[in-house]
């Protein structure tokens, strides 16, 4: 971990009006939760549906994508990464710092809102709020690692990430059960499923498999990013 890189990255991610964009996404979830609570539409099925479809399947991938690719992608694109790479700092430290920043951002803008939304909707019934919080957190770590690696590997990282998160996990998941099992979202859902007694939360992956895959994907993403950053071809900006 390198404090200076972390501070610079935080400033790039949150500076000017960018923090507002990051804040706007979870705000929609919170407003929705409050409205549902006020209009008395917060039974356990609806709550699980909101937390799962909005929190886990939409908010989390979007925020992880913004944070994961945003911490390193723009710097590589405009060549500023050279100023970091030419300092005597090990590449894995750079990657780990960037990844840590991404995870902190996901935790602040996705995990905390999901917890708040869960408490607004359900209080402590069936342990749903903490369960979804843990699920979103572990999913967020895995997503961040994958998207940081993607941002180092490709300049089209955001689009590829979107294709993965929206087309592979959501669209194909509905048609092909195989694709459904091979998605971070389902593994995170499996963690949620194990932690809550609420019956509407069902996942297709067993817990031990899910945890193993989450750990494996996170580790693979981090290692790949560190490895690729050792020999990064820096072209001029488009």
């Amino acid at each position, binding site marked *: 971990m390198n404090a200076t890189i972390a501070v610079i990255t935080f400033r790039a991610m949150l500076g000017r009006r960018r923090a507002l*964009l990051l804040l706007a996404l979870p705000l929609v979830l919170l407003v*929705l939760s409050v409205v549902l609570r006020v209009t008395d539409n917060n039974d356990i099925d609806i709550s699980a549906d909101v937390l799962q479809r909005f929190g886990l399947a939409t908010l989390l991938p979007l925020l992880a994508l*913004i944070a994961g*690719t*945003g911490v390193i*992608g723009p710097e590589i694109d405009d060549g500023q990464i050279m100023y970091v790479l030419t300092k005597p700092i090990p590449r894995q430290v750079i990657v780990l710092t960037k990844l840590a920043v991404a995870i902190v951002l996901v935790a602040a803008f996705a995990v905390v809102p999901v917890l708040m939304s869960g408490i607004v909707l359900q209080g402590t019934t069936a342990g749903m709020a903490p369960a979804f919080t843990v699920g979103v957190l572990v999913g967020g770590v895995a997503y961040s690692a994958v998207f940081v690696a993607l941002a180092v590997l490709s300049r089209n990282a*955001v*689009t590829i990430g979107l294709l993965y998160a*929206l087309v592979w996990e959501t669209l194909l998941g509905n048609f092909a059960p195989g694709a459904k099992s091979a998605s971070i979202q389902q593994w995170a859902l499996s963690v949620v499923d194990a932690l809550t007694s609420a019956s509407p939360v069902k996942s297709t992956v067993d817990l031990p498999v899910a945890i193993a895959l989450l750990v494996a994907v996170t580790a693979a993403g981090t290692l790949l990013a560190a490895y690729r950053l050792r020999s990064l071809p820096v072209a001029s900006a*488009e």
Partner: protein
Amino acid sequence: MTTSTIHDIGYRHYDGRRNGRAYVLRSLYVHNVRAAFGLGRPARAKVMPFLLAAIMLLPAAGSVAVVAVTDQADALMRYSSYATVLQVIIAIFLATQAPVLASRELRFHVVPLYFSRPVGHLDFVLAKVAAMTTALFALIAVPVTVLYVGGLVTKVPDSTAQLGRYLAALVGCALFAVVLASIGMVVAAFTPRRGFGVAAVIAVFMLSSTFVLIIQGIAEARTNFTLSGWVGLFAPFNLVDIVQVRLLGAEKSAVQVPPGVGGGVVALALCAAIVLGSIAVLYRRFRKAGLS
């Protein structure tokens, strides 16, 4: 006291032909349409738009193939539902390409270079919105045309009705294109940082559609179909589908649409407001950027 004089140091005036406003508009438009597909740029910029366009064509081609093999006319996808079914792909295309048109000049602070030439602020914005609209229209209308032509070739019955539905769907495609392009361009113009624009555009579409779907799910469960229909106005794809259903005689592809012709008129008015509002916002945005 000094007397100042103006020396003629021999600058020459331009007294060739002036091509005028239409020429400026057309040049900007053509440039932006090409940019939307990455034409005239390195291969790296072409990969994503063409990949997404190919993905858009797949279901249409598959559907035609199924009709040709099984001879069952109802296996052909409905023309008007195509954009709704493939909304994720369209949204990703818009998200990747709208920043190319709307944020690149802002990011590199080159907008003043345009406006130091005889380019009107409004023309600049109109050309960009028109170009994005054209690109989206091509993206949606080409697969729909493939469906229609495939239907003709495989001799799907009732060809006059098919033609009517096809033409109505083309109008629907145009409306989809202009509404989506307006929203996408505005969002992209306010997020010039690389990658942020893409994420912001997709976030607007995904959050609105998920939000609406959840509300609709609850409303349908309580058999409150009116609320379920009206809330559809808040998701862009659902909004245009309301116009298609209520004013163009299509079957509904969204979860629910508001009742009567009135619902369609409200939706159409909202579409017009979105488009005009977006042009006004973009006009102000680029005007301000042009002053720096």
